[in-house]
Every structure is written in structure tokens, then in C-alpha cells.
């Protein structure tokens, strides 16, 4: 059975100049699946900026690479494992981690950090709540299992709950690795006559056609797709990592690529296509853990922890010796040829013969209709509302799913292994130092499906700005990005319009903030029973800084001046409809996302970087979801509170909870120094209060809006997630 459309099948016939057989049809089906070929998004992805002086390798390889100075480089990328994580949360998430780690170390880099962007349905959803809890527990358990055993720290991420993710959770995993410039490897099968070597785990029937499963919607029968989910073995992956890096050091390896989506098929044809060579191999030589597998099954298996290596002819034994030391299979299965063909044999008989380039790079491109308005799940007009109790509103917000502490999750991740974690989970940005240099890499993941649902383009720009702001708050300069585009069915024009608009927003903002996209992933068909998720692009942006002790979120001492760099911002009723206040307190959504002035944002970020790096900020925290009051509450978790007076014409709900961008809270002993830097960059820096013992009080000079003991705020914020999660029964 073929999942190719009639016109795609015609294209296959014209490439082969004959009818494809069953194996060939399977090969084309997975390589031309949405997941592998990006056929619906590729023409739009071309708009993204991809170059800068730092970019050494851009999109198209297994991961992007940028120069970080001192002879070092970093490789990083984000990838989704959404569909598998719904069907089998633990293994789906675990193999998501495994897959992206292989993308990093196949380039020669040692993975030193992982982050995860997670989206679940609400835990208190009347219909889906229990299932959402099981999915969350499974996903977190899977990430913990795989990353901890492999020995890579999970240093940050974000977790968001919305009803649109009922039945369609998102698991986007970002990984980053480090190496020296002369240690970079590519997935290229160069050198006619060179041996093609299979290393790592044996091939089984797991994950067959996983790539095409990830390219369709879910329906009532989705549970039958469980065998399509792969099973991960982080111990095997750890051995594979060490063996690959050691084998690379022998100098005998010419090219290397992991077997991820579409397994042996994808790795062979992509390596051949990149090098403009052919690859011929025999399936009988492929290590197998099951008997009686057909060529179709071997070619399409997505068994984990496998790599394909092209070695220099005559030096195979050097590669074999390393893999033997680590107790792993390594066998020559074929050879690089000069005819550009992927020629698959089974006991000498040719079972598939396809030109590599056409298979890997000539997938059909679709300019799917999008000339309609992007689908909007909310009205434009704002409802009437007035707060009854601002104190209660703040408590409700800090205890809500999106804003509460995620300690319950990240405490299950080893966030310190490899002793590089300068700033781990729970901060605005995560920071890892690069040993042997004075350089640290800061990284942040961000996405806001709520903003993007209201306006995909503006939402995408806000996301990029927020991600960069997180890095700047830590003192790091944003330098490059990776993105994961999670959307519904692109064959629906109102969904395709969301995709196109979001890409335009990312493109514009990444250009403006000088953060080129070096790679990423597109996950479409995120729909269950005809309901699409909200448009949920996720950004991972990396920044560079000099290694130093981090400036963290909590206030450190009493009597410090609390300042709002960037000012109070602006808001109106329409721009309040995408806030957490609207979601949590009013249980509504309307209007537009907050307004972003990118030019002001960029100047404000330059200012905060200087303030932080000059040592003027004792604490620093970006104001984002939940607005100023929530950000202030988060600054009090170490027990130091604040008394804050806001001089503003905004109504109290807006002043406290609007989510206008370009604002950072700092506490300082030298407010004049902060003001001077702000003046230099022509941004506001307001003295809004003073830190004090035990309480958080916010008023407007005459009226007190919020007055809460910090212990109470902290308790609600810390305990909210755990209280919802125990106990879970099947």
C-alpha cells in the first residue's frame, strides 16, 4: 500500500522510467513524507535568514554549526517527537532525545546540553485531565530516563498547558554540542570505492514508517500505531557516542550520518546525494535482531542508536577496532559508487535502484493554498471585566499551570552532569561554560501558541524577541537560532496561512535581531479528530558571553532599588486578550497579542546586557507571561520581598498583568548607573520600588493593589504542579 499521491507516483515513474516495486515505493513514501521532505513548507522556509559571520554550517546538514571563538564551535538543533509521544509518551519522548543527540554527535560534537519545549492538555481538563497527566508523567519520565543515562544535562525548557494540546501533545527537544573547528564531520559519502559501514544497534521491526506516521493526523485507530514508535536504549547511545567520537579521531572516517527518521533509507540516500555519489549495499550484511525481515522492513525500520559511516578504503580496521572496544557492531555493508544510484541488494539480487539525488532532494514541493485569513480561534472584541480581588488574581496566576514552578519536572532531570551548568532550569536562560575557554553559551527556548493563535506573524516576532530577551537578561548576546514549527494540516488553507505568516514573522525578527536560523524541524498534521493545535512555532536561540557567575532572578537583599528597565509598557483592551490573566482569571481569549516595537526592544536588550555585564544588577528577570506582578512574585522566592509604587494611567489589571514586551526587572545598589546606561540606549529605566523583608506590596501611590506575604506566594507557586500530579491512576 502506498501513501504517495497519484501525481507523486507519476513523478516516481518518470524518475525510474518504470513502475516502482514494493520496496522502492516504501522508500519513496518515507523520503517524500512531510516529515523528511518538508514538501509543504520548504518554499516558505527559504525566506528565513541563514547566514552570518559566525555560521559555519547552515540548514541542510544534521545540525547547524556556529563559531564561538577560541577555535571552538557549537552544533545545535531542535526537533519534534510529537506524534510518538502521544501514542507512547515514555518511549516517544525518550527517542526524541536520542534522535536529536545523534544529530549533534554525528557532526563530531559532544552533546553538553538539552532543553525541552513541552505542550500538554490541561491537567484539570474534565474529559482529558487524567490522560494528560499520564502523558506528562510519561514524557518527563522518558526525557529523564534517556538524558540522565546518556549523561547530558537537561538544563532548561518550558511547559505550557492548553486545551488544543489534548490528544496532541508537543515534545520539542533541543540539543547542543561542542567541538573544535577541526573536529567537524559531515554526512557525505565521498570517495568512490570507500566502504560503507553500519555501526551500533541491530535493526528490528520497530518504528517502521514512523516518518510517515508523523505526517498524518490522528484518528480513532491511532492506538494501533503503537508499533510504529521506536524503543530507546540510552546506554547503547552513550557507547555509540564515545565510539563515534573516538573513531573520528583516528582520521579514518570520511563521512558519518545517524539513522533517524526513515532509518537506513534516509542515511544512505542523503549521504550519497550530498556527495553526488552512489551507494550500493547488501541487506544480508545488515545486523538484524529479528529473523525473516523483508527488504521493505529493513529499509524502513527506525530502530534507534544506529549510524552509517563511510571510511577511507583500507583503514576499516581502525574503525572496527574502536567499535569492538566499546562492544558495538560495526560491519561493512556496501561501497560508495560513481553512478549516483542507491542500489539495494538482498543476497546479491537488486531489490531497489533509485537515483540518490532525486530521492533525497527532488521531493515534490507544494505551494499549498494559503490566500485566506489564518484561522483564528478567538473573537476580536474584548469582554467587559473588572477584578474583584487583585491579591487573589495574583495567587491564581502564580499557581496556574503555565506560570507555576516546574521544579517537579526538572528535578527529575540531571541538569549538572559534565559540570558545565552555570545556570540550570528555572532561570530566564540556561548557561553552560565551555571548558578550556573563557566562553559560556546561553540558550533559551520559547514559544507562545496563544499569541500565535491571535496573530501568527506578530506572535512569532514576539517569540523571537522574548527568546533574545531571555539571553540578554543573562548578559549574553544572541547569535543564532533553530526553530521547530508545529502546526496542523497544511492542506487546509486557513492552517497553511498560519504557517506562512508565522514563518514571515520569524524571518523578519531573526533578521532584525541578527539571529540566523541554522536548522530546525517542521511538524505538521498536529491534529486529532479534525481539531488542529494552535500554531505553535518554538524557537531555540543561543547567545555567547564571557564566563562569569550568573545573575539570577531572586532578589538578594533588603533595601535594594527595584527598577523596571524598558518602562511600564503600554496596553489596551484588545492587547490584553492573549495574556495569562485573560486565560487564568477571566477564562477567555480575544483580540491581539501585545504590541512589539522591535527597535525599542533591541536597544533595551543592549542596555540590559551592559547593565548585567558591568555588574550593576544584583538580580535580573524578564517580564513576560503573567506580566509585572507575576515577575515580581518570581523575584521574591528567596524570601526577600518588595514595596512597589507604579505611577501609571493604566487600570490596575493592565498595570499589574499586561504582557507588553521589552521590560526587565532588576534590583540594584547603584540605580544611577543603571539609569545612565538606559539613557545611553534611549530606553526608560524606572525606579519602581525597594526590596524589603517578607512581603510583596504593589500600589499606585494612593491605593494598594497587592499585598501578600512572600511565603504564601512561594508556597502556591512551588506546590501547584505537584498537587495536580499526585496521585495518578491508570
Amino acid at each position, binding site marked *: 500500500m502506498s501513501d504517495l499521491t497519484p501525481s507523486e507516483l507519476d513523478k516516481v515513474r518518470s524518475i525510474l522510467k518504470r513502475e516502482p516495486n514494493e520496496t522502492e515505493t516504501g522508500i519513496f513514501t518515507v523520503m517524500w513524507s512531510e516529515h523528511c521532505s518538508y514538501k509543504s513548507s520548504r518554499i516558505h522556509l527559504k525566506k528565513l535568514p541563514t547566514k552570518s559571520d559566525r555560521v559555519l554550517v547552515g540548514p541542510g546538514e544534521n545540525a547547524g554549526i556556529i563559531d564561538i571563538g577560541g577555535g571552538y564551535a557549537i552544533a545545535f538543533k531542535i526537533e519534534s517527537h510529537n506524534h510518538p509521544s502521544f501514542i507512547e509518551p515514555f518511549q516517544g519522548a525518550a527517542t526524541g532525545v536520542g534522535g536529536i543527540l545523534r544529530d549533534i554527535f554525528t557532526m563530531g560534537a559532544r552533546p553538553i546540553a538539552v532543553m525541552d519545549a513541552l505542550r500538554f492538555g490541561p491537567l484539570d481538563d474534565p474529559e482529558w485531565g487524567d490522560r494528560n497527566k499520564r502523558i506528562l508523567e510519561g514524557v518527563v*519520565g522518558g526525557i*529523564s530516563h534517556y538524558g*540522565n*543515562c*546518556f*549523561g547530558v544535562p537537561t538544563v532548561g525548557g518550558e511547559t505550557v498547558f492548553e486545551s488544543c494540546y489534548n490528544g496532541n501533545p508537543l515534545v520539542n527537544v533541543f540539543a547542543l554540542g561542542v567541538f573544535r573547528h577541526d573536529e567537524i564531520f559531515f554526512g557525505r559519502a565521498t570517495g568512490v570505492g570507500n566502504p560503507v559501514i553500519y555501526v551500533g544497534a541491530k535493526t528490528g521491526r520497530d518504528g517502521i514508517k514512523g516518518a510517515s506516521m508523523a505526517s498524518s493526523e490522528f484518528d480513532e485507530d491511532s492506538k494501533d500505531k503503537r508499533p510504529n514508535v521506536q524503543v530507546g*536504549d*540510552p*546506554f*547503547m547511545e*552513550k*557507547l555509540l557516542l564515545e565510539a563515534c567520537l573516538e573513531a573520528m579521531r583516528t582520521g579514518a572516517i570520511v563521512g558519518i550520518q545517524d539513522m533517524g527518521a526513515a532509518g537506513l533509507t534516509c542515511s544512505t540516500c542523503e549521504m550519497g546525494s550530498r556527495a553526488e555519489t552512489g551507494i550500493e549495499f547488501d541487506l544480508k550484511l545488515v545486523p538484524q535482531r529479528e529473523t525473516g525481515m523483508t527488504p521493505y522492513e529493513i529499509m524502513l525500520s527506525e530502530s534507534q542508536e544506529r549510524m552509517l559511516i563511510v571510511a577511507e578504503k583500507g583503514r576499516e580496521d581502525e574503525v572496527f577496532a574502536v567499535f569492538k572496544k*566499546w*562492544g558495538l557492531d560495526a560491519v561493512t555493508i556496501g561501497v560508495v559508487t560513481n553512478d549516483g544510484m542507491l542500489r539495494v541488494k538482498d543476497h546479491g539480487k537488486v531489490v531497489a535502484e533509485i537515483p540518490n539525488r532525486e530521492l533525497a532532494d527532488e521531493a515534490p514541493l507544494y505551494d499549498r493554498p494559503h490566500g485566506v485569513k489564518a484561522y483564528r480561534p478567538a473573537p476580536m472584541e474584548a469582554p467587559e471585566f473588572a477584578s474583584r480581588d487583585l491579591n487573589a488574581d495574583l495567587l491564581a496566576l502564580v499557581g496556574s499551570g503555565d506560570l507555576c514552578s516546574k521544579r517537579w519536572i*526538572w*528535578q*527529575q*532531570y*540531571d*541538569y*549538572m*552532569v*559534565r*559540570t*558545565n*551548568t*552555570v545556570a540550570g532550569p528555572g532561570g530566564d536562560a540556561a548557561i553552560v*561554560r565551555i*571548558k578550556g575557554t573563557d566562553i559560556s553559551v546561553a540558550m533559551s527556548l520559547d514559544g507562545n501558541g496563544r499569541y500565535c493563535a491571535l496573530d501568527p506573524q506578530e506572535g512569532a516576532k514576539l517569540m523571537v524577541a522574548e527568546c533574545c530577551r531571555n539571553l540578554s537578561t543573562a548578559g549574553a548576546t544572541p547569535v543564532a537560532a533553530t526553530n521547530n514549527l508545529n502546526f496542523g494540516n497544511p492542506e487546509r488553507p486557513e492552517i497553511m496561512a498560519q504557517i506562512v505568516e508565522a514563518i514571515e514573522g520569524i524571518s523578519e525578527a531573526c533578521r532584525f535581531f541578527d539571529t540566523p536560523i541554522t536548522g530546525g524541524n517542521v511538524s505538521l498534521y498536529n491534529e486529532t479528530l479534525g481539531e488542529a493545535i494552535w500554531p505553535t512555532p518554538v524557537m531555540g536561540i543561543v547567545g555567547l558571553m564571557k*564566563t*562569569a*557567575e550568573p545573575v539570577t532572578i531572586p532578589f538578594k537583599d533588603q533595601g535594594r532599588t527595584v527598577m523596571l528597565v524598558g518602562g511600564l509598557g503600554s496596553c489596551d483592551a484588545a492587547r490584553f486578550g492573549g495574556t495569562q490573566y485573560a486565560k487564568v482569571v477571566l477564562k477567555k481569549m480575544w483580540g491581539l497579542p501585545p504590541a512589539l516595537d522591535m527597535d525599542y526592544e533591541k536597544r533595551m536588550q543592549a542596555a540590559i546586557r551592559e547593565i548585567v555585564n558591568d555588574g550593576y544588577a544584583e538580580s535580573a528577570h524578564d517580564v513576560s507571561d503573567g506580566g509585572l506582578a507575576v515577575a515580581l512574585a518570581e523575584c521574591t522566592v528567596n524570601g526577600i520581598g518588595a514595596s512597589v509604587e507604579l505611577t501609571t494611567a493604566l487600570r490596575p489589571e493592565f498595570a499589574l498583568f499586561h504582557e507588553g514586551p521589552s521590560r526587565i526587572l532588576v534590583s540594584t545598589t547603584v540605580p544611577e548607573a543603571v539609569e545612565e546606561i538606559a539613557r545611553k540606549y534611549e530606553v526608560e529605566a524606572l525606579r519602581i520600588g525597594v526590596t524589603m523583608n517578607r512581603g510583596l506590596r504593589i500600589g499606585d501611590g494612593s491605593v494598594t493593589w497587592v499585598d501578600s506575604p512572600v511565603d504564601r506566594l512561594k508556597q502556591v507557586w512551588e506546590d501547584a504542579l505537584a498537587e495536580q500530579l499526585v496521585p495518578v491512576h491508570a
Partner: protein
Amino acid sequence: MRFGVVVFPGSNCDHDAWYAVSHNLGHAAEFIWHDSPTLGQVDAVILPGGFSYGDYLRCGAIAKFSPVMTAVREFADRGGLVLGICNGFQVLVESGLLPGALLRNRQLKFVCRPVSLRVETINTPFTAAAAKGQVLTVPVAHGEGCYFADDATLAMLRHDDRVVLRYLDNPNGSLDDIAGICNEKRNVMGMMPHPERASDVLLGGIDGKVILESMIHSFSVAAA
């Protein structure tokens, strides 16, 4: 002083221990591969954290059969200093070099966080440079760190002053808040917390250094 850091397949804190000794303390450190029948010229051995052999059967249960463990046992019998950290503690317990067992955490989940430890005795080469009762902040990161022993063993450990470190905020349900114990000769210690992760100001603290410094101090006293 020269430390040897054993590398089992699946060890993943081997490099961290090596880095802490060589960079944070300025002493020599080398890796010892698991199938090595000898330890070479080392003055102390660290069994590092990680997931030796994937820890699929039972933590440390396969590692105890590694050739290097025969050499480690002989080294310990001769009075050499052996420190097992996290998975290394599990390996020491499985090997019978230390009594008791390490079970799954009471909450059945992996836990990674800084914990407060009290130094219960300074009568070991691993705590000689600390003060009795000193409180150290050192991270844990494990799924199976719940120390368990039968009543007789526990009574013996207490009686012989072999409970070296106790948790003040027990993260895993360990019996009697035990975080680290030593053998009868006091030259082998196992601890679940990671001192190598708390030996650099940049990473949030240096309380773990006193364990490694004690080893260095004790070795130099013994050698003098």
C-alpha cells in the same frame, strides 16, 4: 598525588571526577578502563557516577564482574583509598566492599538537587579535613539512592562510627538518613552525593572539595 578514575561502559561522571581532581585541585588524574586487570601507579581510586552497563539489571550488578574490580578489591585490601560516588557507591555495595543496598528512591523518581549533608565522623581519610558536624551542600542526582541495610548491619555501622555522611533533608528515603558509609578499615567510602560537582565556585559551591582534599591530606600524612 595520583588519582585513577575507573571508566565502565556507561560511566558518565568519569570526566567530571577527572576534571575536579586535575583542574579544581591540581592533582594528577588518569582514566582506568574497565577491563584493565591492573590499576597502574595510582594512589587512590574513584569509581564515578553514571549508569554502568546501563544499570538495566540492578545498579552496579554487572560492573562488579569487570576485570578492574578484582584490582580495585586488591588495592582496597592493601589499604588503598577507594571512593565510590553515586553509581560508584552502588558498585561498591554490589561488590561487597561496603554493606547494605541502594534501592529505588522512595518517591520512585530520579532526583537531582543540592542537598545538605552533615559530616558525622572525621575519623576517615575522606573527611579528615572537615569538621565534625560540618554541614556541606552537595548535589545528588540518582534514581536509586535509598540506602538500606538490615538491623544488625545498621547497628554495626553506627557502633563502629562508619556512617560518614547523613542527609539533613533526606531526598530518597535512605534508612537513618544515610548518605555515605565507609568499610571496616575506613579506606573505602561510598556516597550518593557528588562532591566533584561541588568543587567550583562558578557552578554554585565548593563544599564537595573537602572530601577530595581529605583524601589528599590523608595520603600525604600516610606517605610522610
